[in-house]
């Protein structure tokens, strides 16, 4: 292959997680075969989404408006905030429909080695939110990894002077487990059996 446009497409596709060069070539070929029915609609959808997507000002979720649909939903319980590492974790909890409260996405975990400190995560804004009178409980739902748990301990320490109740997920989350890969039942027990931190 020496068509640079196609090469470029393939190399972009292969940057997606789980897509190696071989699958990228297959995907590109598929798209090229269906320029009208697949390729152009996909390209348009990509552009539209890219232009409208923003991080929610409150929780960090991705949505097309500044306040995401979760934060905007008046039927949800504003007194409970579940803190998660990644947007994928929020989506996982939403897919399982196990939590009817609010969220707070940190965007990672504390990791000195990777140069991620408290100021790089949404910890300050969480501390601010936790002081709101309507907030009664913060549930820490970080992954059961070393960095996830260090972050959980850190946040607990930051919140210890406020009246808000701090709890964390307990049984159900296997050691080394990641929320995004867990089934709904496991997520539900994990959320139910949360314990004070």
């Amino acid at each position, binding site marked *: 292959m020496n068509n640079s446009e196609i090469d470029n497409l393939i190399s972009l596709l292969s940057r997606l997680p789980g897509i190696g060069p071989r699958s990228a070539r297959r995907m590109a070929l598929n798209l090229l075969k269906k320029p009208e029915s697949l390729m152009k609609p996909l390209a348009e959808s990509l552009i539209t989404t890219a232009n409208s997507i923003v991080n929610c000002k409150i929780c960090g979720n991705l949505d097309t408006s500044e306040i995401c649909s979760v934060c905007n939903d008046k039927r949800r319980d504003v007194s409970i905030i579940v803190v998660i590492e990644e947007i994928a974790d929020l989506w996982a909890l939403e897919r399982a429909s196990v939590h009817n409260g609010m969220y707070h996405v940190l965007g990672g975990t*504390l990791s*000195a*080695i990777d140069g991620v*400190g408290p100021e790089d995560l949404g910890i300050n804004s969480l501390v601010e939110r936790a002081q709101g009178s309507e907030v009664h409980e913060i549930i820490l739902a970080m992954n059961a990894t070393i960095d996830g748990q260090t972050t959980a*301990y*850190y946040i607990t*320490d930051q919140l210890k002077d406020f009246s808000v109740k701090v709890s964390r997920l307990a049984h159900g989350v296997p*050691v080394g487990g990641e929320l995004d890969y867990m089934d709904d039942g496991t997520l539900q027990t994990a959320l139910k059996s949360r314990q004070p931190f």
Partner: protein
Amino acid sequence: MSIDGFFSVNQHNTNNLEDFKYDFNRVNSLKLKNFRSYKDLKCSFNGGPVVLLGPNGSGKTNILEALSLLSPGKGLRGASFDQFRNFKGPSEWGVIAEVASHNQIIKISTGVSAGRLRGRDVKVNDKKVSGYSSLPSLISLSWVTPSMDQIFMESPSSRRKFLDRMCSSFNDNHISSIKNYEKLMRERNRLLQDSFSDKTWLDTLETRMASEGILIGLTRIELVKSLNDILGKDQNPVWPKAFLKIEGDVEEELISNNSDEVKENYSKTLFDNRRKDSLSGRTLEGVHRSDLLVSERNKGVYANQCSTGEQKGLLLGLILSHLDLIAESSNRYPILLLDEVIAHLDQVRRSSLFDQIVRTKAQVFMTGTDVNSFSPIKGSAEFFSVGMGLLKEFQI
């Protein structure tokens, strides 16, 4: 070595009712793909002692090394991960074993796929798992290799690793605790290098290091105590008797103090050492600095002052007592890998070791160059000749 036998349970040695209370760790079959000198090897074992014979360089240790990768870490050579692939083959490699564990047959596979530079993946029944937290509860291995002849002369770190490996079959969570501790320590070391360091963050890391460190220390103490008890009973009289002691502040404190107090002291030491540690770029005190001191009971001298032969005897006696200990404490038998051990033993010790190998319910893999040195166990062992990337079973 037919593929048919690959997923069948072997019943060797399990006719005795008594045996059912034990959990046999046993490798029933092994596949190597592009691993070291093996392009594609399949073999199966019947559960009895296995003897691998072949000239130097024929690939015997490579087989034992593959087996050793069924426990977490870098295997019995302590090799770096880029050494495992066959140099002439593609960059992926794999070790796939069918293992009897907890009265079930499971498939444990490990290796890397192309392009991966660090570490190795571990799968149990084709599902990816964390090797550190999953493997120790499923399979336990211990080994004696020629390079371990130096263990009493080397730096504390090799004895500490040896100690922790023995601990891992004693407590399934030990290696996880060590990995957690090391991770927390790296984080702390890094944080101490930044001029502006977050105190709460450091506190968190130090508190958690202390908790993990205490768990590590407690397991080490318990193992050493139990091993000393067994060694004191003199069950294997032909071997020089070792006496073990851990040299390390935390472990020494734990022997006579309440663990909560020691934990508090531990965090406090880390807190007090921040400046020193920051200047030296590492954590100067803690369980990651401990050493295993081994002495010869009757003479009362340290192992490093014993003759080479005595040191080897101390080590083997220790490994065999560890096997007894694990069998007693967990009703489970670790797999034993003996690389070039037999040839270097005198007549008395060799026949005592063979006696034990035939008697034990543990699966034992041995290597050697001379078939004659194994003739005493020709009735009870499986013999394979190793060479040209193949294993061939033969009768003697």
